[in-house]
């Protein structure tokens, strides 16, 4: 079960690219890809910089008008989905 203390990173075989206002992640080995809207793109950007979900959560709470419970649930769900798709991995 993923928690806010999880340390995550983008695997080596995953490439990312900004397309318009979205970010696309592509796993070159599996061919699985994922599109992130601007909020998701910000999540990924902060994750690359901060490393842990807790740090990303703290930063995003400052930037977005959302409750901590809601944001935490959304980020955990997104991170879970990306882990399952091989677009993120435990650091």
């Amino acid at each position, binding site marked *: 079960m993923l928690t806010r203390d999880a340390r995550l990173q983008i695997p080596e075989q995953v490439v990312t690219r900004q397309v318009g206002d979205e970010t696309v992640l*592509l796993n070159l080995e599996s061919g699985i890809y994922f599109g992130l809207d601007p909020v998701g793109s910000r999540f990924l950007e902060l994750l690359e910089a901060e490393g842990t979900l807790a740090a990303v959560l703290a930063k995003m709470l400052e930037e977005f008008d959302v409750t901590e419970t809601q944001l935490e649930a959304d980020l955990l769900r997104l991170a879970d989905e990306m882990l399952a798709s091989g677009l993120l991995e435990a650091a």
Partner: protein
Amino acid sequence: MEITTCATLLDCLHRDEHRLDPAALSVLTDEGWTALIEMATRHGVAPLLYRRLKAPPLAGCVPDGVRKRLRGLYLNTAACNMRLYEELRPLLLALRAAGIPVVVLKGAYLAEQVYRNIALRPMGDIDLLVPASQAREAWRVVKELGYRLLYPATETLIPSFGKDFVCRKPGGFAPVEIHWTIRIAGISDKKDGMDDKELWQNARTIRIAEIDAMTLSIEDFLLHLCLHASYQHEFAFGLRGLCDIAIFIERFEPEIDWSALRARVSRHRWCKGVYLILYLASVRMGAAVPEEVLSALKPVDPPAGVIEQVERRLFGAGAETMAMTSNTIDFFKPGRLGDWARVLWRRLFPSREEMTYMYPIPPGSWVLYGYYLVRIRDLMRRHGAVAWRLLRGDRELTETVRRRAALREWLFKADAQ
């Protein structure tokens, strides 16, 4: 239905974001939306349609399901192109390390540098240009990277026959075409291709896939797009080709040297094809082609209905155009028996060099001669149904052949001016 769908799609692709009345979308049924998406996909412009429909003033008229479907196509294009650029990068690095200058042609340049969003421009392959004198060396370099020729027997012909070699990495994503000359198939000897020496002299440095490379000058690139869509594909290139031209002009509008382009077109007598495609880009997509350029290029002897004929081919991608190749037209157009027999012989028995570009024949193998039987079988499979309909006197198809033959004859006849 088809005509309405096409008109809606054209308005969605037009430079003027307000060209389409949102009311036209509000009345679309599920079937109408499906037809619109399918047409956009067939023409390679679904990502552009998505971009237009997700922004105001049209966004509010698009059902969620439609938006999701289009977003899926948009992301799919992004993912496919990302894989392509991942293949392009090591290619450019290796060729550069070997001291071979490379010009990036067509999609790979357009998607990143002209559309400036790789999700907007679908690509099927990577096209590169190297100097003819270094084409064999270029093949050695890409071979070391693990690429294999699609047609192995063409190896000995680099660069003495043809215009390119096509290779692919086992497990790779897309074929790579390495050209040593830009020759436009279909253009007669007098108009044959662009001047390679001039292309290299005018080429400009760019950064693509995060690597320093080169591409054609602005005017040469635009000209190449026009020749490719007009003479090479005889306008059956779909709306993506027209969008490429319109978006290219929009991107470089202040920098295009129209007088240089005009001079080159006149010198090579490419006025007819270039005029038609620029005119349609202007009228249908809102491309900013100066009026004086169109006036100067306008042919003096356009046959009646030529614009409608060209539009029919341009908008009908996938229908008439797929079955009716230019060779089929040459074969079935009205003419003398001697001409007919000559075309038939040429189609059934191409030269050995041409055969090596059609079949995976091992270099220097006698198997080549066996492939002439395969060739006859393939022609029967590919054109048998159309040939049978024509021989039985199918009126609609006969009329299509007559129109196509007339367009070809006019287009490839030397410009009057």
